[in-house]
């Protein structure tokens, strides 16, 4: 830089001279120089722009979560400007006539108000709610991708843990968020949350009293939920997302095995401009889809539920989808309350609502360790597994998903009984049995399918082609075609498959200039 300055010898006379003095990259060069001299961005910045992103579609699931979180932040800030976190009773006189003159909490009144009296308020509220549902959903699907492809293995156990923590926080914040409007359904949800806290042995009543500021309803819970929802949990979530992405950049992406892809490289398209363009476009698309959901798909119409009053309740009380599995578990649990020595343990609440989710999340958190215990695999892994090549892991994951889906289904026993004209008792017992059988059957079937698919690598193999020809005398003759590679095996004969997909690049006339070769002798892992 200084060299060039010396060359011009003094002040540049015209603008063009000034531009020329900056070199071929103009003002950008100058900005880079200024920054680099102070904080040294050039080397790291260039590496960052060159960061390679694998081009597989399944890597997009985490992006859905990230961008719905961006939408959550934007719409959420809008909502805070109108929502009033207050349990104070007011008499409603607003834009929504059917509720005129009703007594309700200020929180409920302000939510109705921002839905009807604030321009685009309802759009923002519904987008926020949809974004929350999509956020949790995409985290779950993203997590399933990580699980079934083994991306959580060493060295990424820590990022897996952060991901699970994010899921737990997202569920909590979702619950607290939909509780804020103080409508009849969410108020009942808060009441249930209080009772669940109460069910914890030894400390339950203290926990409930400290969170609610006294015996239910406490009168301060909306204010507390509000600050938890808009400040405390979002801060933690933002911090953890930062750590999640930071670790991702530091450890680089995993990738599916394939030609030229090894444990020691990443193949794909660069951060700038290709990935930037694709991901920014994707963010806009996610926002657009959430926009149309918020505009057309009505969600949580609190003005139809009415304000929360402790003695009131409505029929078919169901939480948002990500709480459904806990509600279902509560419904199918037998009424096992344990009382002895002057104390009560409400197992019928504590087991399904505290122990069960605790177990599920702890199994998820500990899974990398659990798996390592069985495989004795302490190697670093950057190449992903095909789910079929890990039948036991895939079976375990499928069984867990089946279990969660079954208890989720159990959260609508009353609706199912009504819809199919069955007795509630039949539906209840169906789910009590299904919750045990469905995961076992799913696990076994998945395991079998994986093993079968492994056994026949080219699952649909060619039969030998027959060449039919006509002789000069008009006779037709069928002759088997020449043998081609792969023909020696009958399609039903299983062929042993290597643990990993063949990584050796096939030289097919393409000049292998800088192509990295496959890692020789990739370690076989005991399954």
């Amino acid at each position, binding site marked *: 830089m200084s060299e060039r300055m010396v060359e011009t010898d003094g002040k540049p006379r015209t603008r063009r001279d000034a531009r020329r003095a900056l070199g071929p990259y103009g003002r950008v060069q100058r900005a880079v120089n200024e920054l680099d001299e102070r904080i040294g961005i050039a080397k790291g910045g260039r590496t960052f722009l060159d960061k390679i992103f694998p081009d597989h579609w399944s890597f997009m699931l985490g992006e859905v979560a990230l961008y719905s979180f961006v939408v959550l932040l934007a719409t959420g800030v809008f909502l805070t400007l109108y929502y009033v976190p207050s349990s104070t009773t007011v008499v409603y006189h607003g834009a929504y006539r059917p509720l005129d003159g009703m007594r309700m909490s200020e929180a409920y009144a302000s939510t109705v108000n921002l839905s009807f009296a604030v321009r685009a308020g309802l759009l923002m509220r519904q987008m926020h709610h949809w974004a929350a549902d999509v956020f949790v959903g995409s985290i779950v699907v993203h997590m399933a991708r990580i699980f079934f492809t083994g991306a959580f293995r060493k*060295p990424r156990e820590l990022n897996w843990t952060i991901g699970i923590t994010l899921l737990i926080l997202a569920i909590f914040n979702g619950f607290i968020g939909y509780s804020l409007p103080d409508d009849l359904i969410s108020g009942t949800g808060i009441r249930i949350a209080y009772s669940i806290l109460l069910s914890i042995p030894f400390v339950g009543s203290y926990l409930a009293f400290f969170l609610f500021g006294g015996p*239910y309803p406490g009168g301060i819970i909306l204010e507390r939920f509000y600050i938890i929802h808009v400040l405390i949990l979002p801060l933690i979530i933002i911090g953890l997302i930062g750590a999640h992405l930071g670790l991702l950049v530091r450890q680089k992406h995993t990738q599916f095995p394939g030609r030229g892809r090894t444990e020691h490289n990443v193949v794909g*398209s660069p951060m700038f401009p290709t*990935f930037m363009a694709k991901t920014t476009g994707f963010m806009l698309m996610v926002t657009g889809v959430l926009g149309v959901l918020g*505009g057309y798909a009505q969600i949580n119409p609190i003005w139809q539920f009415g304000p929360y009053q402790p003695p009131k309740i409505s029929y078919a009380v169901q939480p948002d989808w990500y709480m459904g599995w806990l509600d279902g578990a509560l419904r199918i649990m037998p009424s096992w309350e344990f*009382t002895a020595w002057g104390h009560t*343990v409400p197992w019928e609440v504590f087991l399904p609502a505290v122990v069960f989710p605790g177990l599920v999340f702890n199994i998820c958190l500990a899974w990398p360790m659990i798996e390592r215990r069985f495989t004795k695999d302490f190697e670093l892994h950057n190449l992903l597994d095909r789910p079929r090549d890990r039948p036991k892991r895939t079976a375990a994951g499928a069984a867990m998903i089946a279990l969660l889906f079954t208890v989720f289904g159990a959260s609508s026993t009353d609706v199912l009984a009504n819809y199919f004209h069955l007795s509630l008792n039949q539906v209840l017992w169906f789910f009590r049995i299904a919750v045990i059988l469905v995961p076992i059957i799913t696990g076994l079937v998945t395991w079998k399918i994986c093993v079968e698919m492994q056994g026949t690598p080219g699952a649909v193999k060619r039969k030998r082609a027959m060449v039919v020809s006509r002789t000069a005398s008009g006779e037709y003759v069928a002759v088997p075609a020449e043998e081609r590679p792969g023909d020696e095996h009958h399609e039903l004969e299983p062929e042993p498959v290597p643990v990993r997909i063949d990584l050796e690049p096939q030289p097919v*006339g393409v000049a292998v200039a800088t192509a990295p070769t496959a890692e020789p002798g990739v370690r076989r892992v005991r399954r």
Partner: protein
Amino acid sequence: MSDSEEDHASGDRLGTPTAVTLRASQADDPHMRDAARYPRRVELIVALFFIAGIAGVCAFGAAYVENAGTQVYGATLFIGLFCLGFGLTAWGKYLMPQGPFVEERHSLASGEQAREALAAALVERTGIVVKRRKVLGGLLVTGMGIFGIVAAFPLIRSLGPRPRSSLFVTNWKKGSLLVSQTGRPVHRTDMQVGGILTVFPKGKQSTPTAQAVDQTVLIRVQSTELVTMKGRGDWAPDGYVAYSKVCTHLGCPVGLYEQEFELLVCPCHQSMFNVRDGAFPVFGPAPRPLPQLPIYFDSTGFLRARAPYNQPVGPGFWERTTEGNGKASAT
């Protein structure tokens, strides 16, 4: 042009292209070329999407000005952002360098020596504190530890009062007048058989705290069909029977009354309580009967509580005793 076409062909058309390291500004590198076979067509499509997107976001602005309603906002926002995003993604996918590029992955581990140096520094320098100045270290740890404990008091203890007896009591007193949510007392002639009403102790009917805890469901059943439990002989005059409305499962209001079978049903988790038989749970996860409020007619014929509930209402908790737990203690 012709040789670049060839590069293109050999790089992208036949088989999988070989991954290369991303180099600095190599405009003639085939990897830096558009992935599209017909870039002009893709440009046109991207342009069309961008124009649709611009139209969409403009329409969103216009819709806002016109106050056109939530549906129009949603539709225009979708058209605008989705089209812009789709165009940009297509631009990235078809008109930007696709490679495949390869990035070498370097080991993050620092090596044996550096690790040992770190461990040595940690152990040896900690030794300076722990071994040589044991007393100082001990004092510091004691101070910080005490602070950790006392800090929990303002941070946690201040959040709410201790439960003490508050989970055991309600506002129902001996002689409390039963009133509806509007404050109207209940006369012996007010309800038919099969009638149901939510009642509160007079004076507390409009406070949320009392509503949440004191809510009591008053039902009139055929007095001859009522199974009277031992010790509750005079609790339900004329078939008027009062139970706590707080479900013993999770505290939802037991708000549905199945008149035909005389069952109180909790809509949350479908616990059912037999009204004629001491509100015992006959279905669902609720573990205990709804506590019964003993009531009587005063001299003017209005219903009053004979006594408070003889047990805590609502869901179970650790400090709850076995008192009032169903048939065993009732008979």
